[in-house]
Structures are given as structure tokens and as C-alpha cells.
């Protein structure tokens, strides 16, 4: 591994985990697997290898079937999955697990996804049945069960429902990952419990994971760029010897480094529950870096990176998708801006410095 952005934090347990995770992806996430996934074929081999390592639930408490792994380590593993452009609902299963534990519910086996966290979505529970429509549910058609942020008599609830029978249509995001429309018509609720601000909590968990994933994808974008600039020869020398290319990659490195820092800070602040301010900072900052970074990554690769053959697009198409999921930059910037303005200019510095 020749990471340009070292996110290991000098933590050897985390390094070991990252190595294990990298091995899983190197063995089970090759080009045919990624292509088949985009054609709608569930990457069963990859997913079961991840389940074997216990990654999706590792950060949950032992009582919930987890391994009490530090949250930061689990997020680092998620970041590696994104670095590899892995077409699996790892983030979604992690989010679902965190939410279920927060609501005091049992975490079922298998791949899970989440619905109801999109602003404006209305999913309601009445007499143990769930009704309503959720848009662009990640892997909605591939997971047996869905964790839903809903309301019951106006009260925020978290519910677990079966996906079966709810799938209306499946679209794809720009990376070819399935995003499903799920319509629940008095679907049987398997389990439910009150969870304060369930939809908001889901949105925050999602934004946090997408920030971490984008940081991983940007790291790979930078590495692809450096490798290509050093091997592609034009005018008698590697293009990386040209100042124009060097400066492009230096700017990309700045975005990658800032993304790492922002994502790390949000993860650190969110071990128990997502920290609204830091998650907003991360999703806004990393989302901006995603667009600018992907643009540079492609510019450096010229026509080669514009092909399906080159692997660059497995990470850049994810960047272009993830920056819009769980709230785009504007969503989080406006929220941050309002938070800061409401407290007043003199409170900004204490807010930034933690008191």
C-alpha cells in the first residue's frame, strides 16, 4: 500500500485491520465483480468475505453482536472500502446497526440499509404497520431488511421492516450503485422503538459515512493521478515533470489532505452519536473537495481516464454520487451558516476552539 494520504493515525491495531480489509477487497473486488455489480448482480462473494471478517458490525457492542471495535477503526475500514470502490452497502449496514443500537433494538444478520432520512420524506407507523414512500434507498432491492426513520402519532420512531414487497423501482447513482424507490403499504413492522429525531439522526450518520467514504475515494484519485503522471510519457518525458501537471496534483493533494482531516475530525467527535457541527463541516468540506478533486484526477489522466477501461472512474463516479447523498454541500453549509449566524460573530471562535 502506498497511500499518499496516511490516515493510519500511527495506530497499529488500525493498520492491522486496514491490511485485513485491503486483502478482502484485493481478493474479492476485482473488475469483473465491480462490472457485474453495476449490471445489478449482488457481489455475494465480496459481501460474505466482509461478513466473515465481521466488519459491518464490528463497532457495535458485543451485546448487539458486535466486537466493541473503536468507532474510528470501523470508519477507517469503511474508508478503505471506498478507496477500493467496493460496490457493497457497508456504510448502510453500519449506519443501520448504529441506529438500531441507539434505539435499543436488536440488530439482525445480513446486509441492511436505511430509509426515511431524506428531508421531507414521510413514513408513518400505525397499528404496527408502516406506510409511505422512500426515494433512492441505497441497495433497497438487495437487502432483506430496512431500518426506517418514521413517525408514530407524531413521535419519532426507528423501525425495522422487510424489504420484500416494497420495491417499486431501482435507479442507479452515477457509480452504478442501486438506489431504490421503496413504497410501504401497511408493511408489517418487525420491531420499532422511539428514537429522538430519528430522521435527522439517520441523515447525520449518512453524511458522516459519506464524508469518510469520499476521503477514501479521493485518496485513491490522488494516487491514480500520481502514478499516471509518472508513467505517461509525452514530449519525451513523464507528464509529471511538467509544472502544470505538478501544480494540478498539488492542489488535488490539498483537497485530499483537507478531506482526511475533516472526516477524521467528524469521526472523532461522533463516537457516541453524530456531532452535528463537525459532521456538517465534514460533509461540506469533503463534498467540495470531491468535485474539485475528481475534476483534477480526470484532467491529469487525459483521454485515458475517460475510458471505461481505466479504473479511475470507479472512484470518481462515487465521488460525484456521494457528494449529493445525505445532503449536498449547500445543505450542510446553509445549516452551518445559520448555526453560526444565530450564535453571533463573537461566538464563532469559541465554537471552533471548543469553548
Amino acid at each position, binding site marked *: 500500500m*502506498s*497511500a*499518499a*494520504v*496516511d490516515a493510519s*493515525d*500511527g495506530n497499529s491495531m488500525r493498520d492491522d485491520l486496514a491490511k485485513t480489509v485491503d486483502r478482502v477487497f484485493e481478493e474479492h473486488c476485482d473488475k469483473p465483480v465491480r462490472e457485474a455489480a453495476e449490471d445489478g448482480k449482488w457481489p455475494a462473494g465480496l459481501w460474505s468475505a466482509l461478513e466473515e471478517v465481521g466488519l459491518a458490525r464490528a463497532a457495535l457492542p458485543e451485546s448487539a453482536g458486535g466486537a466493541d471495535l473503536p468507532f474510528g477503526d470501523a470508519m477507517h475500514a469503511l474508508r478503505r472500502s471506498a478507496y477500493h470502490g467496493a460496490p457493497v452497502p457497508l456504510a448502510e449496514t453500519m449506519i443501520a446497526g448504529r441506529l438500531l443500537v441507539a434505539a435499543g433494538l436488536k440488530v439482525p444478520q445480513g446486509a441492511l440499509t436505511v430509509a426515511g432520512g431524506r428531508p421531507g420524506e414521510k413514513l408513518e407507523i400505525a397499528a404496527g404497520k408502516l406506510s409511505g414512500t422512500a426515494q433512492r434507498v441505497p441497495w433497497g432491492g438487495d437487502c432483506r431488511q430496512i431500518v426506517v426513520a418514521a413517525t408514530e402519532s407524531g413521535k419519532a420512531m426507528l423501525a425495522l421492516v422487510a424489504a420484500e414487497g416494497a420495491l417499486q423501482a431501482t435507479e442507479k447513482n452515477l457509480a452504478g450503485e442501486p438506489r431504490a424507490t421503496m413504497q410501504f403499504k401497511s408493511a408489517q413492522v418487525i420491531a420499532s422503538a422511539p428514537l429522538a429525531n430519528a430522521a435527522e439522526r439517520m441523515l447525520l450518520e449518512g453524511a458522516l459515512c459519506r464524508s469518510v467514504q469520499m476521503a477514501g475515494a479521493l485518496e485513491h484519485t*490522488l494516487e491514480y493521478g*500520481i502514478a499516471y*503522471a*509518472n508513467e505517461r510519457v509525452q514530449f519525451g518525458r513523464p507528464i*509529471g*515533470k511538467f*509544472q502544470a*501537471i*505538478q*501544480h494540478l*496534483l*498539488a*492542489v488535488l*493533494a*490539498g483537497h*485530499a*489532505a*483537507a478531506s*482526511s*482531516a*475533516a472526516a*477524521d*475530525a467528524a469521526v*472523532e467527535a461522533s463516537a457516541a452519536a453524530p456531532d452535528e457541527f*463537525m459532521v*456538517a*463541516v*465534514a460533509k*461540506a*468540506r469533503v463534498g*467540495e473537495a470531491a468535485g474539485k478533486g475528481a475534476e483534477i484526477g480526470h484532467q491529469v489522466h487525459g483521454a485515458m481516464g475517460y475510458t471505461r477501461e481505466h479504473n479511475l472512474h470507479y472512484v470518481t463516479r462515487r465521488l460525484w454520487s456521494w457528494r449529493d447523498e445525505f445532503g449536498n*454541500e*449547500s445543505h*450542510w*453549509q*446553509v*445549516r*452551518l*451558516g*445559520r*448555526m*453560526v*449566524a*444565530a450564535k*453571533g*460573530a*463573537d461566538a*464563532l*471562535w469559541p465554537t*471552533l*476552539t471548543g*469553548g
Partner: protein
Amino acid sequence: MHQFRFEPIRLPPAATEMRKRVRAFIAEEIAGGAFTPSRNSWSTYDAAFSRKCGEKGFIGMIWPKQYGGHERTSLERYVVTEEMLAGGAPVGAHWIADRQSGNQILKNGSDKAKAEILPRIAAGQCFFAIGMSEPDSGSDLAAVRSKATKTDGGWKISGTKVWTSNAHRANFLIALVRTSPKEEDRHAGLTQFIVDLSHPGVTVRPIYNLYGGHDFNEVVFDDYFVADDQVMGGVGMGWKMVTGELAFERSGPDRFLSTYQLLAESIRKLGPAPDDRAANEIGRFVAHLATLRRMSTSVAGQLQKGAQPNVEAALVKDVGTTFEREIPETFRHLIPTEPTLARGDSYPELLGMTMLRAPGFTIRGGTREILRGIIARGLGLR
């Protein structure tokens, strides 16, 4: 390929305590009328304020007590610097001595220099200028032509330095000069000297900046005598020392807080309930600022451990100064106003000053282009 490291850093309780102390000090000074929060903190020269900082132990914080220092950590020092900048305190007089010159002397100065100069810097009574650039040597520092020739008990320096901030009021300057002719290795043969600016034989001429301010100077040495004990490190060690201090010079909060006052004033002006467009821009800057602080404190943590994170520092400065420059460009759209040259505290005055200072942010301390070259080298492209 270099691995960028931005390890997370947790500020120790001592740093939190220090933050309280420095905040209380700044509040007291403002209340006592010592200064109005400045719009240009580390370019504002105020010797009386620096002396008070010295009395309070806010200068030379990481140096040994033997030399007037306070044996505190880099992180405590970091907190003091960022609080001073965010508070708009006029720290310009002691800034260079505290940030880099003093550290250089501590590491490379003669025993005499350490014993005589460091305690005065720490007391806020002795100020420094940087003598690196020359008329024909800006980004290409190894092209310096000032030269020193050996004489009895010391050296005679001849040559011209430019863009020398505060040379007209600083006590000393650390000059990078050539002590042997240029060879194939153009970085060889350079030496740093501590130059006492109070002796006759040095001419300091002002160079006014485009804002009309007098920070810069041209400094001309004509066979200017410097004693042997004012050689830094060793003869021929200049290049190594100059590059060794870059991480201190480039990674600090002064590389992204230059326009913090304009950001805060803009937020004040846009009020407690800004529209979406304004909230969006405020939020974007806050996201950038929070991230930059994290990157910068991480470098401070690495410096504390004795590492030399030059590439990380270049990244902080490149990303940080880009951020600083965007602030006036964005708020001029949100708060329609015509910036003015008048000196004062009103918004058009603040905006005008910031705009005319801004071109310097991405030049001083290493241009954006030089930084990107350093980063590219770190990436394995050069």
C-alpha cells in the same frame, strides 16, 4: 512517495488553561484601551503591546528557562498564537522573533547570542526581521548575492536585502549571505548571520506597499562588520537552516487567519438570520476554517515531537492562504459596498484594507507556486 501525515492531535489540558489565560489578557487589554481589535494582527507593530506579552510569558514559550523561555509545549504556544490572531491583537513586533528567529538562535546560535538575545526576545523587548530575499533572489533563494568576507574576528557583509519587514524598527536581522563562491551545488556556501541593525553602516530604506503601508524595506550593507559569534550554526550551513525553519514559518494559524476579522465582521453584518445565499457562504468558510485548524494543529503536534513536516506545512499554507483570499472576494457580493482606502474600522474600510493586503498572502513566506512545487516533490513527481 512521501506519506502526508495529519495525525489528530488532542490539545492537552495545559493548552486549554493557556487559552483561558490569553483570552482574559486580550479582553483586559481591549477593555483598558490598549488596542482596538486590529484588522491585520500580525502585521501591526506595537512594541508596548509586545512588552506586555513578554511580561505575561507569551513569547519564547517553548524555550528553556535558562534563556528566558517558559518551557511550555508547542501546543500551548500554538493556542496563544491563534488566540492573539483571532482576537486581533497587535503582535507584529515580536512575531518573527517568536515564530522563527528565536528558534534558530536557540538551535544554531553561539552561546553568547543565546545568552544575550533570547532573554530579550522573550521579554518582548527585542525584535527581528528576516533577511532572505534580495533584488535578484526571491523564490530562488539560492541565488543570493550578498556576500561576507572573512576579516579579523568576524566577517564583512556587503549586499542588499529586500522585502525586509520591520527592518526600520527591528533590533536584529538574520541575513542569509554567500560565504564562498557558487559551486555546482548552489545550496552550498551560504551562511546565516545575526546582524545588529543598531550599528552604523547599514542603510534601511522604506518600500511602501500598494496599500500605502510601510512594512517592507530595502536594507543595504556596505562592508558591515559582524563578529564571529554572530555566525549561526556553522559557515556554509545556511541553506540547511533556512529550509529547517520552513515548517514553523508555514504551518501556523497566521496562514489562514489573516482575514478572520473580515469573516467575523461580515457575519456580524449579515445578522442572526441570514438568507440562504449568505448562510451558504458563511457555512462554507466555517467548514474550511474548522478543517484548516485541524490540519494546522496536527502539524504543531508533529513539530512538538521534533519532526520536520515541511510538505504538510506547505499544504497548510497553500490551502490556508487560498481560503484567506476567498473571504473578501465572496463577501463583497453578499454585502454590497464600495471598499475604501480610508483607515478605520468601518466595513468598507476593513474590506478595502483586506483586498489590498490580500495579494501578499499567497506570496509572503513562499509563493503559492513554490509551495506547489514542494508538494509535488513530496508526491514523488520531481
